[in-house]
């Protein structure tokens, strides 16, 4: 239980304690009023318990019914099928819909097929606009996320490429989309993922002689006081 919750009961405890103390001093003439207050508090507690029970029941019902197929599912299946047919069957590690993000179709690809998949997506699915490249450090492994969008049809696709922590290696998308150049240099600089095939992989944010990659979870800051 995070520190906040520990905080609240104790703090509301003090507020309630403050109230009870006030009540104690005003005990003599406020007897019926105190009884009324206790009864009201009991009723409130009962009502709250009932509401919670109803909510849990609703959740259970909803989880058991199969989630309605997301509108973008056919789009995703088409893209996945295209990649399996054109590139290789085992190129895709995982294919799923990210509901949180407005049902964004997401595919996770293997690094060695990533360059051919990128060219395929750019030509076949007209995903000409690489909108964002982010690097994420999941402690167990590193990951690069490419967000693509087609300006004509407005269809979107997120592509993720995993890389292990010791020797992170991802083939670069700069030959396919020129915008990936600086984004990948920034990820190399802050997370240390080496992008093979990148025209000039140098540090972009940090000074060139900087040691370590600051955005990694296990990066100990230079002066620990921060």
């Amino acid at each position, binding site marked *: 239980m995070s520190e906040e919750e520990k905080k*609240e009961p104790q*703090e*509301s*405890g*003090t*507020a*309630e*304690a*403050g*109230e009870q*103390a006030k009540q104690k001093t005003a005990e003599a003439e406020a007897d019926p009023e105190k009884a009324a207050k206790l009864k009201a508090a009991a009723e409130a507690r009962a009502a709250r318990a009932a509401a919670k029970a109803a909510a849990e029941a609703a959740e259970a019902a909803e989880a058991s019914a199969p989630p309605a197929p997301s509108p973008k599912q056919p789009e995703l299946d088409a893209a996945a099928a295209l990649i399996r047919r054109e590139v290789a069957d085992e190129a895709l590690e995982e294919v799923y819909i990210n509901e949180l993000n407005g049902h964004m179709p997401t595919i996770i690809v293997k690094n060695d097929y990533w360059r051919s998949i990128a060219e395929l997506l750019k030509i076949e699915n007209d995903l000409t606009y690489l909108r964002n490249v982010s690097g994420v450090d999941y402690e167990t492994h590193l990951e690069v996320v490419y967000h693509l969008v087609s300006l004509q049809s407005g269809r979107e696709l997120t592509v993720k490429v995993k890389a292990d922590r010791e020797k992170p290696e991802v083939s670069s998308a700069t030959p396919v989309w020129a915008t990936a150049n600086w984004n990948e240099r920034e990820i190399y600089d802050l997370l240390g993922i080496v992008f093979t095939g990148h025209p000039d992989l140098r540090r972009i944010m940090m000074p060139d002689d900087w040691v370590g990659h600051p955005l990694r979870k296990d990066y100990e800051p230079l002066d620990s006081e921060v």
Partner: protein
Amino acid sequence: MKGLFRGLGVTLKAMTSPKVTTSYPDVPFEMPDRFRGIQHFIPELCIVCNQCARICPTDCITLTGKPNPDPEKRGKVIDTFDINFEICILCDLCTEVCPTEAIVMTNHFELSAFSRDDLFKDAQWLTDNNTLVRKDNNNIGAPAKGGAK
């Protein structure tokens, strides 16, 4: 050539039109009521709940409470309350989460000092900074009255 002369016409007209600059150091610049200036601290209202120290993005508030001196009251009373104005960004989150509005913003913004430790303001200084205090304090982040549910 026509564009050049039209441009000259605009600047000529501007020459005779009223000026917009304010003479700040001589005439004080009065800020609207909601302006986020230097904080004003009211020690009596503070219940030492540490909310402001925890919400501060730059951790520049350091406060210590001491048990309540008169016996029958429970809870804590504030002992020292310091804001380090070197790193305080006047983002108004502390006044937002303070349940008892013990810390409030004022309209003052002159904070320049000759040495860094002048910027380390203590509770006394913050309490004296009581002119032009903001009236419309809306602390939506604070827990509702009567303790959190």
